[in-house]
């Protein structure tokens, strides 16, 4: 029982010492797509950049295809 209470106190202390981002990320799901990162890590830096450029080109094209929007 005492060990359990001590562990709880330790966790709280660790949280106080933890950087601001760690404390927030403990409370929320940041929605990071691990498979996307896994896929990226299999590539070379050159390939990672090329993939990003391709995605940007796709997004630009999609924006153009959508045409002008009305307010």
């Amino acid at each position: 029982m005492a060990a359990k209470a001590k562990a709880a106190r330790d966790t709280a202390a660790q949280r106080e010492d933890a950087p601001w981002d760690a404390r927030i990320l403990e409370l929320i799901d940041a929605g990071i797509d691990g498979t996307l990162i896994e896929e990226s890590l299999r590539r070379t830096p050159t390939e990672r950049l090329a993939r990003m450029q391709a995605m940007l080109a796709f997004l630009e094209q999609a924006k153009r295809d959508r045409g002008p929007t009305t307010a």
Partner: protein
Amino acid sequence: MIEVQRLLEVLADSGTEFVVIEGVAMVLRGSGRVTVDVDVCYARDDGNLARLARALAPYHPRLRGAPEGLPFLWDDRTLRSGLNFTLTTDLGDLDLLGEVPGLGSFEAVARGATRLEIGRVHARVLDLDALERSKRAAGRAKDLLDLAEIAEIRRRTKP
């Protein structure tokens, strides 16, 4: 659309001392995100300012978001009189930072970087530890997501 590879080649070919930071550094280190501009930290010595000014001049750097017609002279004197510049160029949006929050001046930033092969360029790119320090210091909402990604990249690359 930003031409990241071309911008890095232009800077590297000119001999400009720079470190790739922010979103492009995140991508090069394994993030799955997309970024629409290039951010670099640059050395502030006279020689480097001259090289940087010469390298970008053909691509018509102008202040991003400034009113049309606002006079802006792109040269090493302009670079010397400022520190951080948010630019639009013919190759896309480029942010030039003389210092990075959480890291400091170029020399400190360079210590937190390693060279990566990017196409035919070997460019200094901020490593995960330095990215983490800079993101933590900046403290914006988007930095929180980057910090979560950095933690995930670390988890997946831990030996």
